[in-house]
């Protein structure tokens, strides 16, 4: 039921972990299932230099976190803010309908981390 991309990112998730002294930290808890994602950012000159995540959730949530991290690493904060949940799901080759909400965690947690960075540097 999961695409090959989902299985790949789930089996070998990229950028798992945490960044000490991160420039921005954000998290999101899913209102529908209670699953949770935490994102750590290293930002230089408005560009995401490094990103790490921790996820408590299903296979789709883990794959979405991993895919999101790959999509935004090296991107500007504005580009990262423009990333939508749908884009994460599309990049994974789609998600089964009952698992669509799982990709919501990824972009939302990322945006929280960016907001946290912007609030602390402003």
């Amino acid at each position, binding site marked *: 039921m999961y695409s090959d991309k989902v299985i790949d990112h789930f089996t070998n*998730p990229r950028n798992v972990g945490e960044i000490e002294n991160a420039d921005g930290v954000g998290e999101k808890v899913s209102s*529908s299932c209670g699953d*949770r*994602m935490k994102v750590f950012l290293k930002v230089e000159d408005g560009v995401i230099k490094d990103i790490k995540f921790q996820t408590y959730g*299903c296979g789709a949530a883990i794959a979405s976190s991993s895919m999101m991290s790959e999509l935004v690493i090296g991107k500007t904060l504005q580009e990262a803010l423009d990333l939508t949940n749908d884009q994460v799901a599309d990049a994974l080759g789609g998600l089964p309908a*009952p698992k669509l909400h799982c990709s919501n965690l990824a972009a939302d947690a990322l945006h929280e981390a960016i907001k946290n960075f912007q609030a602390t540097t402003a």
Partner: protein
Amino acid sequence: MKRIYMDNNATTAVRPEVMEAMLPFYKEHFGNPSSVHWAGRETGAALEAAREKVANLINCTPAEIVFTSCGSEGDNLAIKGVADVLRDRGNHIITTAVEHPAVLSTCEYLTKQGFEVTYLPVDGYGMLDVAALEAAITDKTILISVMWANNETGTLFPIEQIGAVARKHKICFHTDAVQAIGRVPVDVQAAQVDLLAISGHKIGAPKGVGALYVRKGVRLTPLIHGGHQERNRRAGTHNLPSIVGLGVACELAASDLKGAAQRLRQMRDRLERGLLAIPESQINGHPTERLPNTLNISFNYIEGEAVLLFLDMQGIAASSGSACMSDSFGQSHVIEAMGVDPMMANSAIRFGLGYDNTEADVDRVLEILPPIVKKLRDMSPFYHERDVTKATA
């Protein structure tokens, strides 16, 4: 990659002896068992032989067996059938919070028809309090429906005690024994049960066949009206090959009930001990009053679906207590009723061992699962934030 099937509470493979017994009834012996000619007489005899085998397994007379299309039909026929007949005597039904949807949804349906249903709670082991059950009885109570064994946790209810209470108060007693059959001794006389549902596909017979035990003298309104099959209790031309298969599966189960249970228990216990060595894991279910084949276990800080996916990729089929894969994003109603901590509940994994499992299968799960738990915990924010002083306990 070797495939390992450990989801026998969901369904079982058809046993080879069952398959072999069924095949002639598709081709050579195709007659309608209700026909009077040679073709019908042949299959009529096979039908009655199967009925006898089912009756033997649960200690009743063949006339008390009604063949059905599945366990769900048996539960529906029992509950709706009795409710309809006894409607003038009362409108109160007692059941439990942890029944299979075949019972729970049927009760919800009856609620819309004016019945009142009491859903008894369970304790942390998923166990029922018989005194609370007796206290719930009113002069309007017409039916008690309590499962023999829980499909998710394997917890066994004290059916004999409940039977005695039901008999004392002269209330009809139905039990969903779909998971208990073939795994623990089931005796409808000792348990004083009036109605008992069986499903073929949990005991090595095909999917789509079952039976309902109906104690002599218990009247039911049929679900399916039509011909006179099954003494007017269930119309429809018999699914003869499957019924023959159900008979053989019951015969096989009866011939080796103790031995099979012991083998299953030994493997299950070893799996359980090995997995409990993982810190912050817990069994969901009763420590002793439990089906010998069932292990429902949680690993804190991670989610069950992710564990199952990793297991699946290594060829191991188990199932999740959480309903994450379905459209309803809640946790299992069974685990919830037990008051299990929500994060523990979310990681519940169910192993249901079966005839085909070997000690080597257990070894393989014990080799593969601990690293999966570690990998997922390393990824989990809750694991990194846990109270380490408490967690080492």
